[in-house]
């Protein structure tokens, strides 16, 4: 890994920001271990753990068998007995295999045992469309996690957030699910290690505006920003909120913004029904119904499995063009 010592990067990939966060955290805390399928010799299916084996050795960077339930379960046991494991699930879709350990064990151990013990583990995984992975390698399953009390959930969109939020997740005692996006790994942005913007649970206003609020997270934040830039041509000023973490969820920033702009679009790659977008829409309605001028728009992936064909996959998820179209409609109509 290059530039391990640098504190400031004008331009770094999301992937390298994740790698650096793991690397720097492992230097700080010798009880952090990394475990998962192909995380060591291969360097992670998406390269996020590349070179860590060379640097930290096989006691701390552990290739596991293809046993997702036991990977998560072992991370739980290690977390209960003095370590701070980072377990990796190669695809978020493998929640299907390991949901008992995630939702019935990790999420509930602290509560069931009356607060005697915490489960300070981070489960890193990645999701989303964009590589024709099909219905079992392209999903956005964050609502499964958000639906389960006890789990922290972070889905950063920028390298700087990915670095600082992951580092922060490795300090909290709450089991944290960290969902990256497969199409974000090659995106770039600045990283300032010295300016820790690590307020886990606080959303960030990416662009300020007064005409409508676009609420998003992960890759869709970038779409929202693009859309907001285009809307400026029509003199429409959109406020773009990047949630960064879904639990804790920064309701205050959402509510304050929508009360100001009186219009809202929630953009997410996940399903339309019973989703993160549904939840945020409810929050807006409950708290802003007196100020709302238009119905809240839930703009999401379709309520179907994810198709493989590139044209279908692309049409399956929100587009910048449609965000612009819907925004114009609720502002101008």
């Amino acid at each position: 890994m290059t530039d391990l010592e640098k504190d400031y990067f004008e331009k770094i990939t999301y992937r390298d920001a994740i790698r650096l966060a793991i690397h720097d955290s492992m230097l700080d805390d010798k009880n952090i271990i990394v475990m998962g399928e192909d995380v060591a010799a291969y360097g992670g299916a998406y390269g996020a753990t590349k070179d860590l084996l060379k640097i930290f050795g096989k006691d701390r960077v552990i290739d596991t068998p293809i046993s997702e339930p036991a990977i998560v379960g072992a991370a739980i046991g290690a977390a209960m007995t003095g370590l701070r494991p980072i377990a990796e699930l190669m695809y978020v879709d493998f929640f299907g295999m390991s949901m008992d350990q995630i939702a019935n064990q990790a999420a509930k151990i602290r509560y069931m045992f009356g607060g005697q013990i915490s489960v300070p583990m981070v489960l890193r995984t990645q999701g989303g469309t964009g590589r024709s992975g099909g219905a079992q390698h392209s999903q956005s399953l964050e609502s499964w996690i958000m639906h389960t009390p006890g789990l922290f959930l972070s889905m950063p969109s920028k390298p700087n957030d990915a670095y600082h939020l992951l580092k922060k997740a490795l300090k909290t005692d709450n089991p944290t699910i960290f969902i990256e996006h497969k199409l974000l790994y090659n995106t770039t942005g600045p990283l300032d290690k010295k300016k820790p913007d690590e307020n886990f649970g606080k959303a960030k206003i990416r662009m300020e505006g007064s005409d409508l609020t676009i609420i998003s997270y992960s890759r869709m934040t970038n779409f929202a920003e693009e859309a907001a830039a285009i809307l400026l041509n029509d003199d429409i000023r959109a406020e773009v909120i990047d949630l960064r973490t879904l639990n804790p969820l920064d309701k205050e920033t959402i509510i304050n913004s929508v009360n100001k702009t009186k219009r809202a679009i929630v953009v997410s790659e996940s399903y339309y029904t019973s989703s993160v977008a549904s939840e945020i829409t409810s929050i807006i309605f409950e708290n802003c119904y007196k100020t709302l001028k238009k119905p809240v728009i839930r703009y999401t992936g379709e309520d179907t499995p994810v198709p493989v064909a590139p044209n279908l996959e692309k049409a399956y998820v929100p587009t910048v063009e449609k965000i612009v179209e819907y925004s114009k409609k609720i502002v101008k109509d």
Partner: protein
Amino acid sequence: MTQTNSLLPDLYKTMKKVRTFEERVSELFIKGETAGTMLHLSIGEELASTCVAKAMDEKDTFTTHHRGHGIFLAKGGNPNRMMAEIAGKKDGYCKGKGGSMHIADMKLGHLGANAIVGGGIPTVIGAALSYKYLKKPQVSIAFFGDGAMQQGILYESMNMASLWNLPVVFCCVNNQYGMGTKIDDAVGKKDFAARAQSFGLNTLHINDLDVEKAFHNSKDVIEKARKYQPGFIEIECYRFYGHARMDKSPYRNSEEELKSRKERDPISFAKEALIRDNLLDLDEINKMDESISVEMDEAMNYAIGSPLNDTEEIFNDVYSNDMPSPKSVDERIKKILSVK
């Protein structure tokens, strides 16, 4: 007492404690003082509850299945706090929020009982990874029933134990029934030890009532695990009563139950051996039984007397203490309605 080096008196005492405790749980239920009816008693399984738990070192850790009262008690669980937990009371190990199936005591190395069959098994893999990495001479033991022998996660865990040479022991308490399904109706080939052997684990199959022998043999497996040779112990026994308190056992006949209670009772067997080998006489045994009975009565009364939690307790312990607890639904609704 003639042979002071025999462990049988102590093992008998532990088994008797387990049975008496479970009988009091049953009584607590009849009095309407338990939290619910999901109470899985280990009566008939006392040898299994005792031999491995007593063979563990003080710092060894373990997880149990839902039928884990006996194991916890044998490892040193406090009967008062256990009973209070089963009653859902404030003084219980988990403040009454875990109950019978989710009881735990980190100080004692009890990493938790589990209500998902096989759910607690991989926990010991992680614990053992910790001990190996931190160079602590501890062993972690997963207890589970014969039902979990049919769960995939057991084999994922066995493979990891073997692959990474972990200080782990898998302990199957085979009581012949998965709820109401007899083992013959759930298992293709009834050779659990062979399954474990195929993963390269040291295996021990216990299928008699000699608790002292079971203790020593279990100890061997545990000590090998401490030297990074993971093990598997199967203890065959018979669940004297139903699956849970409400189970009237329609799936098996009372003849089978009565026969098993007569022929497979580890406590009667140990009692006879104590007398036969002049380790304790009947008077001494009766006195011991009586003091256990008093102790467990006290536990039952402690549970009955322990206060209930304030309902605010619902919201504690979801997240670490530096995080705000979730707000109640009532509070949320009132906040929404208060907007002018």
